[in-house]
Structures are given as C-alpha cells and as structure tokens.
C-alpha cells in the first residue's frame, strides 16, 4: 500500500509539473509571462 502511495505521489507530482510547464510555456508564447531574459541569460554569447 505504501509503495503504491509513494509511486502515485511521484507520478502525480511529475505530471503536475509537466502540465505547469506546458501552461507556462503557453503564457510565455503569448507574452503574458517572462520566460527567458536575453540580457540575463548566461547562454547568450556576449561580444563586448
């Protein structure tokens, strides 16, 4: 029983997180949320 509870909790958390990411990505796509800030992103190659 404990095993099922742990596995179900982990699965639910993973699914909820994935759903939240999808929702946030959609909001970012519509400009309603900040996703990635170019000026702050460490991945942006700086030439100066």
């Amino acid at each position: 029983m404990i095993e099922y509870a742990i596995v179900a909790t982990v699965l639910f958390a993973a699914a909820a997180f994935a759903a939240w990411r999808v929702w946030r990505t959609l909001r970012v796509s519509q400009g309603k949320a900040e996703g990635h800030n170019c000026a702050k992103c460490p991945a942006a190659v700086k030439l100066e």
Partner: protein
Amino acid sequence: MTHADRHTVALLGNPNTGKSSLFTALTGTRQKIANFPGVTVEAKLGTAKFENSEITIIDLPGTYSLSARSPDERVATEALLGRVPGTPRPDGVIIVLDASNLERNLYLATQVLEFGLPAVIALTMLDVAQSRGITIDVEMLGNQLNATVVPVNSPQGKGIDALKAALHRTLHHPGKALHVPFGDDFTKSVDDLHAAVCDLSVRLGFKPARPEALRLLVDGAGPFFDECEQVGGKAFADSLQTLRERAAAGRSLALLEAQARYGLIGGWVAKARTSDDDGKRTRTDRVDAVLTNKVWGTLIFMVLMLLVFQSIYAWAGPLMEGIEQGVGALGGLLLALVPDGMPILYSLLKDGVIGGVGGVLVFLPQILILFLFIAILEDLGYMSRAAFLMDRVMAPLGLNGRSFIPLLSSFACAIPGIMGTRVIEDRNTRLTTIFLAPFMSCSARLPVYTLFIAAFVPEHGVGPFNLQGLVLFAMYWVGVLFAIPTALVLKRGILKSKVSPFLMELPSYKMPRPRAVARVLVERGTAFIKRAGTIIFAVAIIVWALAYFPRDGAMIEKHDAAIAASEDEVAAAIATIARDGGFSPDDEALAAAIADIEELTATHEESVSAAEETIVNGAELEAALEERAAAFAAAMLELKRRHGAAFEPAQAIFTTRIEGDEAVTTLEKRRDGELLAGSFLGIAGHAIEPAVKPLGWDWRIGMAAIASFPAREVIIASLGTIFNLGGDEDEESESLRHVLVDAKDKEGNPLFTLATALSIMVFFALCAQCAATLAIIRRETNSWKWPIASFTYMTSLAYVAALLTYQTASALGA
C-alpha cells in the same frame, strides 16, 4: 541635504568605450540593475557623491546612435527624456567619447547634445589614441562642442574627481542645445513635424522633444511612429510621408542627416586633433590583420573550433567516468533504502530516476568544457572577430550583419538568440533570423551527439585529430549547412528585403579573467543540473510510467515459472555431475576447484578485453591473443594437476553454471521485453514503428525521439529508461553507452549501427525539438504562423535528412 543637492545624470556612449568602467569608478559598489519593460536591454543605477551633492547615475546601454527603429534602441531616448517607468528623469548627461575613434563617437554626441540637457564629455582611451600617434586638444574640443571635456582613465581612477566637479558645475549652469545645420527644407520639415506631434501630446501622454521629431522624420518608422500613428491615425502617417518627401527632395534622409552631422564633426576634429602621418598600429590591429583576414582568419577559426571539439573528447572522458561512478554509487545507496517487496518503487528509482536522469548528468563535463572555451574566447575578444568572419561568409545570403550575433548566440541556446533579434529593424530580416536560429546546434544537442559518437564512432586518429572529434565538429556544421539554403529561399522569396550595412565594434584583445570564466561555468553548470532535475526528471518519470504500466500478472507468472524451472534444471544437472564424479554437491575439494577455475577464467577474459582495447594493429592483436590463450591453457593444466579427480567435474559444473546463467538471463530479457512491448509506450511505439523503420530506428528509438520534443536531452533519459526496463542492461553495462552498444533488435542483431547513430544525430541536429523555442518564436513574431512553420519545416527536413543519411550510410556498409 536639500532637494537641489540631488541630481540624476544619464551616462551614454558607444559600446566598448569604457563606459561601464567609468560607471563603476563613479559609483563604486552602490549599484542596482533596472529593467526596461518590454525590451532586452537593461540599465544600471548607481550613486556618486561630490562634496555635499548626491548624483544618481543611469548607465544606459551602449549605442552608436539614437536612431530608434527597434524598441531596444528607443530606450536610450526614452530614458534621456525621463519616460521610462521606475527610472528617474535625468537632469544632465555624461557623454563618453573614445579618443581613438573620435568621429564615430561624436556622431552620437551630436544627437544627444541636440536635446539641450546639461552635458559633460568624458574622454576615454587617450592612452590608445596616444599609442596610435593621436593627440587631442581637450580645451579646443570643449570649445567646439560648447561643453566641458574631461580626460578620464577609469581603471587608474584618473580624472574622476575632475569629472564630478565639472558635472556639478554644469548641472547648475546648463548650456544651450546644439544646432546642427541641416538644409532649409529639412529644418522646416522637422519644425512642422514637431508641431504636428506636439498637437498629439495630450493623447500621447507626453510632449515630444524636437530631436524626437527629427528622428521620426529620418527613420519614418519605429515605436514612436507606432505610438503617433495609433493616436493620429492615417492622417498623421500621410502628413509624415509628405514631410519626409519634402525634406529629402529626392535624396536619402539618412544620408542627408549623416552628411550634416559628419560635416560638423569634421570641422571640430580638424581643429582639436593632430595625428602622426603614419598613425601607429596597435597590437590589436596587427593581430586583427591576421584573425580577420579572409583566408587566414577563416582557417584559424576552423582550426580553433576543431580543437574545441577535440578537447571535449580528450578531457571529458575521465570526468564522465567519475560522474558515472558517483551516480552509480549514489544510485546504489538509494536503491539500498528501498525495502524488499517493493518492485515498482525499485524500478521507478532504478530505471526511471537513476537510469534516466542519472544518464543525463553524466554529460555535465562536456557542457562545461564547451562553455569553458566559449567563455575564454568571449573574454579574449575573439567572438567579435568570429562574428565578423561569419558576417562576410554569409552576407551573400542576403542577411543583415546584425543577424550574426543572434545566430552565434544560438549555438549556446536559441532562445536568447531569438530574443536578440529585436535589434534587427528590418522585419523580414528579423523573421529570417528567427527562423534560422533553431538550426544552430545548441548545447542541448551536445549530449545527444557525444553519446552516439562515443558509442558508435571508432576512436581512430585522422592525422593530428581524432575521428570522434571530427564527427562532432561535422555535426555542428549540419545545421549551418541546412540553414544556408533555407536563408536563400526565404530572403529571395517571401521575406525579401534589402541588405543594410552593419557596424560592429571589434574590442581590443584582453587576457581572459578567471573570475568571469568561472562565473560562466557555474551559471551553465547550474542551468544544466536544474534542467536535469526539473523538466528532464518529470518527463523521465512519465516515460517510465508509460513504459512500466500496465503489468500483465499472468505473463509475469508464466515467465517467472519458466525461469524457476530453468534454475532447478541447472541445479539438478550440477548435482548429477558431482555425483557421477564421486563427490557430493557441497564437497569442499570440488568447491575449491570450481573457485580456482572461475578466478582463472575471469583473469583470462579481463586480459583478452584489455588487449582488444589497447592493441590497434590486427596482426599484433592476433599474436597477443594467441599468447594469452596458450598461457590460459597452461594454467588450466596446472589446475588439473593440482586438483586431481575434482578438476573434471568442477570444470563441467562451471560450464553448466555459465550456460544456466545465460539461459536465465535470456528468459529474463524475454520477460522484460514482452512486458515493455505490452506497456502503453510499447503499444504506441509499435503503432509508429513503420514511420521510423526507414530511418533505421526501432519503436524504442522512435518513442525516445518523440518523448524528446519538449527538450532534446530527454532522449538520453528516455533511452536509459526504455532499455533498462526492456532488460537490455546487465552487469557489464557500466553506462548507457554500453547498453546501446549491446542492444539487440527482434532478430537478435545489434540494434544500433553507425548508420543508425548518424541518422539519429542528423535528426536531432535539424528537428525543432524544443517547446520553449517555439513559444519564444510565437511571442517574438506575435503569430502562431511562424512557430508552426518552423516546427513543420524543421521536423520534415530532419526526417528526410535522417532517412537519406541512414540509407546512404547503410549502402556504404556503415
């Protein structure tokens, strides 16, 4: 302190003029970052003290002009006029001038001085100018500009107090706005336009300044135009067009403006500057003569990149093994915590978490090595030269030079690259650049390439290089090669536009700062681990659940019964052999003989593997193996002599045990394979298998690739989970690399060949597998049309290219 003792001053100048150093020298550590809403640039705010005055300094982004075609460029003007929310209105301005590039720097100065704000000029880089034989008459320059000019050397702290004193004086005694002598029609048009936009001031919510009307007249577009058009409607747009035509009188407005400003600047500089006839070349100039040379520069760039990819293989190996062992040890500890009788939780941890996410973490060293080089090259000042070289190579494609910085950025991640396209004022060029950005091989593709290259590309040397490094280098070029024809088609077809010239500063070379490099590594390492711990972790768990459930209890019972029967059969055979030899099954002499045979066989196998790994020459290997076989036979004879009657049955029992273990392993694999095939993932996978079969993939690779559409690295976790659950891992499988090498198809042949690996890598190089990138494309283009077009085009292209790669490579015997 009274209100009069508090001031706000904007700091403005071209990029690379020492503006940031001056800001730090003026304000010390009293700084904070201010974000401008809706744009990618940001400003720093700091406080400078002078006597009993407190001066807030706004460090604006470096810019070459106040031309306001893009939102990022418009910010400088808005900030000068105090219209940026959360940023105070400046009472004055410090204009930074690079003494070694006076004309170009004065161009911006003329635009700022037109606003009539109290201004002080900070003259930097005098040492560079002097080394080139340039002398500036500071007082004369000040007289020409009608402003105080103060020479400064921020790193040495020279001139900072004088600058503060001059600023203090100027703020209390402002001068007059600069008048640039444009032609009569031009000036009249600016005045008329200024009157027209002032009429809109109530609806605009602010009173536009005359220099803004000038910019509007010359640029004819941009955010200010949009605002005016919104409130003034078509009538405003029409009247602007009429005024533009009158001012231009058949010529280019931008050219008229430049002629007027440079005419003025030319007169100032002639009076204030003297230089040696043969202005000395700096060390940077001499190095640049080679590094930006069309032939040598390109060659050096290519060799440098090759070395980067070689190093990724040469250096990452030992570090990866360390992380593999660490993950393995941590996984062992974690699994030991799971109580007996919890097979689902055990599998979730072993196959989902450790096999999935743990497999991704192993690639951290490669990411860090790549960014170590990027950070060093950035800090050295080389990246600008690389952009300059690429600009020249790709200019024939019809792309604006400004496209290259976002594209270069996209080699790390397409998202900041796409956001960086905001500086491109031409809509069509911007859309083309956005469309091309995901083609550049981002760092998320690196683990995919390195996994398959390490597993399936031989480690042969090719001249001074390693074949694996060469293939990795080639993979980075795949995207570029496909981007070129895409750009050609777009720029000559639906996104046609003129190429406008591009001005880019080549900063002086400087020694990379260890702290700056370390900061990049920490940021990238953290970002990678965070990604592995969040989105990759979540998808890996979901993939595990889909691959684990549903479990067919009857099928498990049937297989477990067969496994138990096989084990019983082996035990019975061993008992018979022992009895026939005259021993009881637990006889000590017999057990000792079996242990010795086991030890000798294991030592021999290790020795053979070591020879196969280290000896490359075929004849030498054959000789070495023969030598080892002879030694093994001699050692066995010695064991036979030592153990006497126990040796023969011991050898037979040893062989029976090995065969029994193999039979059990085969049965377990069959059970795990059937369970995986019957899972949700297996059912969906078999449905899509016909579509991926021509690419050389089976359903397991197909499903792992599909699971990677949210983020590319997920394929590593998915393959780890799927092949672990499918029973493809065993004690010999130290890592995912080994699991993939050992994986078999339905007929028992190796599932992955070099052709399959190349096909997967080409697919990942070209496919639009990044949800975040598509979201940013939607946001930046304000339309679903572009992300849908990008996704459809890139995915189709990836499929066709992977198909051709597999079929060609298979035909060539790879």
